[in-house]
């Protein structure tokens, strides 16, 4: 698993434990973040991602473990003295201050001269594509998207080494969300600041981040590049987190680095899975092949060499435009198999049709729960 970073880490967190009373929120999390890197912390609610972000920001102290930022131990260093800036989930713009006073607040605290402050606020406005007439308005007078830009501007104006983002893009409007994501990625490229984004949306994390840290129940499940996470997920939790996918239970016999798998479902031959297609965290229980919806086809003639074929009935289909999704009920499987076919005018099958579906086990990924 590629977890190495290309340059010297700006954040070195090792063995971070956080207890709230008797409840342990983080179980010894270690994470290095490189200078200029974009890392996303992903996981379901309650996985500890926000707690970790608060510890990085200095709003919470870890119970044990060490945190270094820019080579300096952060123990006892308050949020105000850290080279990090946070964009809050609900933005936390000061309602009683104008946009100009909100953006300029960190500079005011640093006692930056008025002329320089005005010039930097104006540069920030340009960077965030905010109109100049907004300066004298109050946050409540701006739209949601504009407020998000103001929050970003306030966080970035003092040129932090690390920008922490706590799900600030939870916009109700999908189109707005997409444009903000694109802008955030561009911003990261232009500024060269390290970004740490907390999100529960793995697709968003894949779009934006250089590396993704998938967390569950206070532990890091997998740390890797978006393609690692997608193509080589550590386990079913990570694989299932990114959209819909299929798990086909198989019996495994280890064979060198690779593995030989058989499915009790059909009369198909045992298949050989190469070492590169086996999760390094493979356990003995609940082993399964990860079969992506886009790798399954309807088999009308003879099966291809090495292809596994399953029989079932079409339960439902959805025309999504560029693709058509089929759900096929296969006897012996708990959940219907999901398959995405390239969209076409003619539908290959209708509801209740008996169909044969095929995929190549050798191109699938072997993992366990």
């Amino acid at each position: 698993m590629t977890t190495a970073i290309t340059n010297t880490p700006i954040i070195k967190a090792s063995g971070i434990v956080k207890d709230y009373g008797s409840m342990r929120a983080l179980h010894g999390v270690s994470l290095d973040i490189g200078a200029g890197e974009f890392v996303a912390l992903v996981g379901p609610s309650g996985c500890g991602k926000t707690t970790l972000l608060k510890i990085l920001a200095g709003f919470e102290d870890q119970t044990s473990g060490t945190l270094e930022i820019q080579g300096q131990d952060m123990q006892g260093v308050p949020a105000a003295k850290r080279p990090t800036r946070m964009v809050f989930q609900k933005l936390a713009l000061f309602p009683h201050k104008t946009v100009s006073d909100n953006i300029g607040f960190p500079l005011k605290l640093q006692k930056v001269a008025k002329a320089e402050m005005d010039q930097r606020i104006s540069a920030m406005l340009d960077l965030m594509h905010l109109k100049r007439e907004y300066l004298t308005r109050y946050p409540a007078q701006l739209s949601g998207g504009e407020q998000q830009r103001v929050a970003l501007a306030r966080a970035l104006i003092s040129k932090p080494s690390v920008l922490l983002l706590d799900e600030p893009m939870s916009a109700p409007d999908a189109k707005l969300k997409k444009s903000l994501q694109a802008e955030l990625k561009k911003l990261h490229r232009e500024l060269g600041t390290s970004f740490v984004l907390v999100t529960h949306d793995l697709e968003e994390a894949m779009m934006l981040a250089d590396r993704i840290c998938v967390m569950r129940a206070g532990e890091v499940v997998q740390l890797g590049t978006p393609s690692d996470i997608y193509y080589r997920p550590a386990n079913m939790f990570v694989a299932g987190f990114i959209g819909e996918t299929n798990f086909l239970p198989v019996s495994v016999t280890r064979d060198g680095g690779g593995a030989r798998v058989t499915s009790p479902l059909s009369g198909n031959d045992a298949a050989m899975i190469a070492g590169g297609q086996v999760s390094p965290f493979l356990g003995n229980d609940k082993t399964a092949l990860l079969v992506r919806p886009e790798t399954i086809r309807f088999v009308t003639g003879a099966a291809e060499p090495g292809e596994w074929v399953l029989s079932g009935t079409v339960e439902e289909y959805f025309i999504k435009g560029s693709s058509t999704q089929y759900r096929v009920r296969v006897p012996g499987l708990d959940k219907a198999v999901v398959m995405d076919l390239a969209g076409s005018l003619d539908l290959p099958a209708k509801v209740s049709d008996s169909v044969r579906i095929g995929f190549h086990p050798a191109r699938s990924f072997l993992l366990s729960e």
Partner: protein
Amino acid sequence: MRTDSKSWRDPVLVATVAPLAIVMLAFFVIPLVMTAVLSFQTTQFYRLTWTWDLKVWTEVFSKPHYWTIMARTVAMALVCVVICLLIAFPAAYALATRLRAYNAQIQILIIFAFLTDAVLKTFGWILVLDKSGVANWLLAHLGLGPEALNLLFTPTGTMIGMVYGLVVYPLFTIYLSLARIDRDLVLAAYDSGASRLRAFFEVTLPLSRPGLYCGAVLVFVLSLGAFLEPKVLGGGTAPLASELIRQSFETRVNWPLGAALTLVLIAIGALSLALGAAVLMRGNSGRAAR
């Protein structure tokens, strides 16, 4: 929303507003008008005579005695406001920040403080402030000599009673506005580089202004009308406006004079509030747009 000018023709609207309108008319507007009318009459041999005369008003404006009492009343009210806010703000801050988990219980306890009878609370202080009371007993035992305190029947005694009776109002209003402040705003101030003190003055204090203003207005208005405390704890040594008005009505049986003094007190209260509001509005004129 119904904004057209013929809304008074809407029978439902009229029916829902009527009870309140009648009560306000009967027990607020009419008495006020009656008071105003009364102030233009005169008394002869303890009897009200129905004349239209400026005699009472001439007396009010020519006797500095009345104005001394009015000025003392306003001064006491202002001092009371300052002391109440100085006591209430730190207490409300502690309740809203350190004891946030007990929010519901705190609100109930504050409401209990409202429900306790003012007479009971005021007379209770006699036991404390009396020369042989608890306060002196304690100070004497601390070695400060007998009768270190002689507060009963002094303006200070009045003030203690007023502050004690009224401090719950700003405590409640400030507590409510502090409890409403999003904790993230304070964190955002820290994150921007603010010290705890700076974050307090930049974020917490400005955002608790509604509670401060509201509490100040309540204390001011209620202190102007303070009646029990100057009588029971002040002992009538330095009478305030309400005592002056009571004397005019009861002791001197000069109703027109009492009515005129009542109007003067109401006018002073209304003018002070208008002045205060104007000053505050100028301070944050830009915010009026919100």
